[in-house]
């Protein structure tokens, strides 16, 4: 009984690791778009550097890691001081979403921390 349980746990662990780590890419449509909203916070940044510039730098750099491009500028979310949004075209598959989110929330730019608030598929106009 114990050996069966151990076997199930091992196989389940392997399956979980496979699902969590294996990259699976698929087409999302050339006209599809993804709106990413991030929340930014900075600590002891350079006086002339704005939070908007820091967020734009990291968000734009991370686009280079996925199969998409920035559609438009990185803009502040209306009514907020620390949230910014960027539109990616085409949209990202599930693996690219994980990768983009990880890149955006990584410690890449000094004095900046970003948190992905939402990633919303936008219906093509």
């Amino acid at each position, binding site marked *: 009984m114990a050996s069966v349980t151990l076997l199930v746990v091992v196989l389940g662990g392997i399956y979980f690791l496979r699902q969590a780590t294996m990259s699976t890419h698929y087409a999302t449509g050339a006209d599809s778009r993804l709106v990413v909203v991030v929340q930014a916070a900075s600590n002891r940044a350079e006086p002339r550097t704005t939070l908007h510039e820091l967020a734009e730098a990291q968000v734009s750099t991370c686009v280079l890691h996925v199969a998409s491009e920035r559609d438009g500028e990185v803009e502040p979310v209306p009514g907020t001081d620390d949230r910014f949004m960027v539109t990616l075209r085409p949209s990202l598959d599930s693996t690219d979403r*994980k990768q983009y*989110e990880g*890149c955006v929330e*990584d410690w890449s730019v000094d004095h900046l921390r970003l948190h992905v608030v939402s990633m919303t598929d936008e219906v093509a106009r």
Partner: protein
Amino acid sequence: MKAIAWLVAGATLVAAAVYTVVSLARWEWNRALFFAIVFVAAEMGLAVALVLHRLARVEAMVTDLPPPDSGARRALRDTRDEQERFAWLRVDPTDVVGRTSVFITLLVGGGVLLSGGAWLIDKLASSTVDPRREQRLGRELDAIAYRPGLLVDEVDVLARPSLDRDDPRVRSFLGSSR
């Protein structure tokens, strides 16, 4: 205090390992690198602390060992043959016959030293005569040797019972000596 240090180090190691794996799963490479460095640092610290702890234990064990004067060493020391070294140097003032021991030794030693010195001098002297020196000496002797053809001297000529004046060498010698 030591327990707290061990606990903190162990917790740091585990937390760093967990965060490294989580960061890798989230595609956060810089975070993963940072936590991996923390993990390695904690691991090294723990390893060094463990080695030092073991060394301290060994040191304490060595310190607690009994002194090295064990029974075996004591038995060896007690049964050791007490040799009297340089006994021949010791002079008994009452022993008149045995007093020559040092003298004989010095005599023999002096003989050896003298023989060695003579051998050295002989070697040095023989080294002063070499083929080059002989060649130079031969050249110097050649310079003062009689010229070829001049085989008689004045003493030989006068010692002869009758002079053979027909001998051109005699005529030449007598002519040159006049």
